[in-house]
């Protein structure tokens, strides 16, 4: 007999559109960390797989002015997820991050950091944008043509995956012998050019690891 299919559950933190009811007396802060901590703890109590954070990088406008009828204001995704790693123990932490307005190397490092700090609970909801309005908040400016969005998205994911599996390794134990090398083994070199990525774990890497056993 096959096992019953298990339901996967994500908990979407209430967002900044009209789905979120703020006029209810029970509605609390959309930005205080206590709100995020409460929501995350509830999701973990309910055995959810992950908490999910949306993101928008420019305040919405309606008829040329900031839309004022819905909840406005949210935190930085990586920062609040890193903090939530400290108040939960099992819950996945999924952040929406835009590949158009973030640099691949930086994303790779931030996700790798979050994965370390949460002991393996990081998730990335990858979105792209062709929105010049949002682009005005960034020095990259402008935006990408629709066909380029996914090219850049692929590069972003690629860099994240290659870097994520290719960092330096930590030593298995401190070693007191002076001159014995390899506090942490050398990480391989990653190269990415437009729409093509290569990641080579070079001979230097293996040489350094041999040296660990000196």
């Amino acid at each position, binding site marked *: 007999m096959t096992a019953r299919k*298990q339901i996967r559950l994500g908990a979407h933190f209430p967002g900044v559109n009209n789905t979120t009811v703020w006029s209810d007396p029970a509605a609390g802060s959309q930005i205080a960390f206590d709100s995020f901590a409460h929501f995350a703890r509830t999701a973990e109590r309910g055995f959810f797989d992950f908490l999910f954070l949306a993101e928008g990088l420019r305040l919405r406008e309606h*008829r040329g002015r900031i839309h004022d009828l819905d909840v406005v204001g949210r935190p930085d995704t990586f920062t609040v997820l890193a903090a939530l790693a400290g108040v939960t123990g099992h819950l996945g932490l999924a952040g929406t991050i835009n590949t158009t307005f973030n640099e691949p*190397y930086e994303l790779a490092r931030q996700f790798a950091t979050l994965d370390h700090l949460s002991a393996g609970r990081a998730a990335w909801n990858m979105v792209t944008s062709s929105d010049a309005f949002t682009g005005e908040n960034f020095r990259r400016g402008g935006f990408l043509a629709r066909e380029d969005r996914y090219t850049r998205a692929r590069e972003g994911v690629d860099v994240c995956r290659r*870097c994520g599996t290719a960092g330096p390794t930590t030593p298995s134990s401190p070693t007191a012998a002076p001159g014995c090398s390899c506090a942490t083994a050398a990480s391989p070199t990653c190269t990415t050019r437009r729409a093509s990525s290569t990641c080579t774990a070079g001979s230097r890497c293996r040489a350094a690891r041999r040296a660990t056993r000196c």
Partner: protein
Amino acid sequence: MHGRFSVPRSPQGHPVLIQAGDSAEGRDFAAATADAIFTLHGSYDAGRDFYADVKGRAVRHGRRPEDLLVLPGATFVLGDTDADAADRAVEVRRAQVGPQTAIAFLEQIWGRDLSGYDADGPLPAIDPDVDNVSITRGRVRHARDPRTVAQEWRDLAAAKGGLSIRETVIEATSRTSFIGSARTVAAELDRYVQGDACDGFILIPHLTPGGLDAFADTVVPELQDRGSLRTEYTGTTLRENLGLRPTARPATDTTRRTSA
């Protein structure tokens, strides 16, 4: 770009990758690359079609169907009884679409300043201004012809016996929502999953921060009783808890493990 990475391999190697986007291009990207797809396909039948489509795409990319999870976004309203929940759902919808919000929705379609209209009155007789497409900025816009949408809304208002602007917006912008007692909602969520309309849900409560409390207290035990939800976390990483395969280690690490 070029250089060495400064963070050691993390527990999952790389994060679980979720892809949001229902376009054909987005589906294909997800099928080739993602661990989960966040979709808006709500109904049971549309869900089954979508599920079959993206799982098929994953297989064509050389992956197993279970390597890609299909997770639609879903809202819910709970009550002590199904009738109680239905009453609450009406209240929630009215709170989500207040008079000003109803007018703002209308202005998005009509492309005009409609602030002079009464949300409890009928839809405007005037037609949409099709040239004013940038009335709303900073959110996803749907690319449909506003005249078509306006006509659909008028038809909807008429068919339901003359809905007001606010009532029309409430009806027209409703998405799939699971409404009922905890037992009813648990059964319905489970029906979607066991019937391959999806692998689970990304639930979107309407209240911060307590919107998940009742679900955790009442629906979760029902799902557990049905044998469809864990009673403890068994994996050490998110990837393991989701039943996904571990990420490959680079070749050098394999070398190291075998030679050490």
